[in-house]
């Protein structure tokens, strides 16, 4: 048995030395919000935070992590989807199929923590996740919305939500 600190809790798991963190999260700890897309750190669907740094968990052996390192997955980013990035994502209907979006959101949250007002170049450098549906422009717009305090009206999407609000 080994131990990881995931989403603020100490979690025990059992896996071979080479088992990537991704598969420990998904198959041992039941956290399936983190996705498998390529297994070779190309697509970013598996992005989690390790001590605040966006990390591709598909090539990170779980055994390389200590019980002190703080791992945060999409499920632990906020208790109820209330992280500013998640709120902007939901208000602006950023996801399409949504499969890449956990990784996108984790990458964006880490970027905005490091650089609260990222430039386009900063966004390009940090957001190297693949989205095959092509949500890139809404992802960029949502990051800028968060950087500007979360007012989604800045994006001119004018989406009517079921609570009647127009965002």
């Amino acid at each position, binding site marked *: 048995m080994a131990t990881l600190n995931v989403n603020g809790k100490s979690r025990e798991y059992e896996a071979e030395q080479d088992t990537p963190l991704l598969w420990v999260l998904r198959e041992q700890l039941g956290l399936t919000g983190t996705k498998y897309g390529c297994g070779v750190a190309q697509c970013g669907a598996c992005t989690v935070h390790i001590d605040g740094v966006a990390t591709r968990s598909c090539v990170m052996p779980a055994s390389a992590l200590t019980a002190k390192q703080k791992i945060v997955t999409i499920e632990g980013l906020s208790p109820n989807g209330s992280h500013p990035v998640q709120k902007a994502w939901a208000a602006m209907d950023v996801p399409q199929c949504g499969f890449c979006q956990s990784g996108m959101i984790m990458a964006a949250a880490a970027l905005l923590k490091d650089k609260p007002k990222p430039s386009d170049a900063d966004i390009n450098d940090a957001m190297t996740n693949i989205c*095959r549906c092509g949500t890139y422009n809404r992802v960029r717009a949502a990051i800028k919305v968060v950087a500007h305090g979360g007012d989604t009206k800045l994006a001119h999407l004018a989406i009517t939500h079921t*609570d009647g609000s127009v965002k």
Partner: protein
Amino acid sequence: MSRDAILPSAPSQPAPSSAPNKSRRRFLGGSAAALGGLVVGFHIPLIGEAAAETADVPEVNAWVVVKPDDTVVIRIARSEMGQGTLTGLAQLVAEELECNWAKVTTEYPTPGQSLARNRVWGNFSTGGSRGIRDSQDYVRKGGAIARTMLVQAAADEWKVPAGECTAAKSVITHKASGRSTTYGKVALAASRLTPPATVTLKDPKDWKLVGKRLARLDTVNKTTGAQIYGMDLKLPGMLNAAIKDCPVFGGKLKSFDASSIEKRPGVKKVVQVGDSGVAVIADTWWRAKSALDAMTIEWDNGPNAQVSSASIAEIIKAGLDAPEAAVGNQNGDARAAIAAAPRKLEAVYSYPYQNHATMEVMNATAKWTPGRCEVWTPTQNGEAALAAAAEAADLPPSKCEVYKLHLGGGFGRRGAVHDWVRQAVLIARQMPGTPVKLIWSREEDMTHGRYHPITQCKLSAGMDADGNVTGFHMRLSGQSILASISPQSIKDGKDPVVFQGLNPPGPEASFGYSFPNLLIDYAMRNHHVPAGFWRGVNLNHNTIYFECFIDELAHEAKQDPLAFRRKFLANSPKHLAVLNAVAERAGWDKPAPKGVFRGLAQTMGFGSYVAACAEVSVSKDGELTVHRIVAATDSGYAVNPQQIEAQVEGSFAYGLSAALYGECTIKDGRVEQQNFDTYPAMKMEKMPTVETIVMPSGGFWGGVGEPTIAVAAPAVLNAIFAATGKRIRELPLKNHSLKA
């Protein structure tokens, strides 16, 4: 191009001033978290209690269930894979139902239930941008019938004529007596009424939900990790499987050495899958995959082991001049007109194999017993998945069931052929009673696709001294999708899908140009690499071929590419309208910013008219930047304009990704590209701004998921020519130098 603005353009339609004002109680699958990560669909037997959201409430009709608390559950037969169809179809039903949108939720009926009820939900197929346009009529009628029954139930209770009652936002009112009730209160009584034989649908001008920029119904769970995709499914006692199929299409499994891995931790069984595959079943997928990778496997590569991209290209090239070809569109005598023309132009274009590369790889969970087979899978066509499961299970479809899960992308891969479902069932048959989840590795997914068909095209045209086209001949040669998927639909060598966008005028597509002599024909040349439907598919390469060649002709005639196109689109007002719209928005008649060059393209496909103007620059080192796309779509009606914008933006990501990088090459009979490192996809950095013009002209229903992909590449290729003088006729662009 500056990206100072949060988004480059204002929305093309104003937001509605009023909207429903209550929170939706649930989303599709929204209670998954409450049930420990299991998907709430519709009668999922293994889950047990509270499995079916509507099991305890009688339906008003097949499309509508109203719960006592006024929650309206709308049934959606088509699949949601990101394209927004689930929300759009719910809008259409709710529009006629006159229900409270804030309390709408959705669920998938299963194909097995549909089969048992004489296909009451119609077609499950979700492809060809047909999700909304092919079902809009009957789903709206479903909503209208349910409303009629609910109102009748209230009128019966009050003993007043139904015609004196009105319905709005799930409230039924009888004004004369001042009484009112809600749908939830009369739903049980309504469910016992005989449905009306006919209903009248609303005039589009009276729509309140359709045409509005409504938020999707399935977004929130995609921001929290709660959305369950096929790959995420967990069932009690479930095992996991990893598979390798023969890397050469048509080859077979010769042998495998199970003894070398059977003792590895977690490994339960090593099984042959059909005659060409082998799978490892283990407690976790990672252990199954690791064991499979460690196992020695011998393949019989079969008759195609020597085939290469070059040998395939030779076969297709021969079709360009073959005497025998199927005619798809013809008027006059194009060959004679070209022969007699004072000015002639000829060019050959080609388009490669491309993988769909859905973000979620193929996967399915199957449970098999001698009497029943159940499959949980992301599919674009639940009925086709059921048929594949039944065949592999060796059981009648009535003893099988498919539970659809959210798709992590479809793009055509998960529609027509369910090879992964067949494999999952064949594996599960070797573990009777145990659910087994099969997940492909990305490498398996890249090398066992159903690829965008490979084609070449020779275009020839004759022009008179004034630059008028007198004859136009387009010869296609290459793969037919239907030849492998639906051979019975091929007649006299003619696969109608091959001619997407090149057709005589019709509701699905129309080659908009009027030339006095026209011939578009096709020589079928198939190969062992399997072709499949692909987002946009034949319309994509066909539009590249004719829209780039039209551009070549305009330059040959020394005429402005916009003015040149307008001359020959005079009889196609809707084609012309979208082209003019993008030209106007892009500022075609004004100079582009310094160093920026423009290109145009237009087409009609999937029932919609589309056009694009691309602005690009090419550096001295040959680096291409696509700065801006202006795109127009006339889909007749526009059910949810903000989602159409999302689809159009996405189609440029998909289309430009294909144009820049998309290529699967064949060596020794197999696909060379294994993962995103060798089959790159476009990322954020390369994504242009996209200004979407949604311009529904009314009177018809066109699709929106695919059409604009087709104009992405040709608009950019034509802009590249304007920038560099280089005419790229073979994709992808990564194989070409744009250096001056």
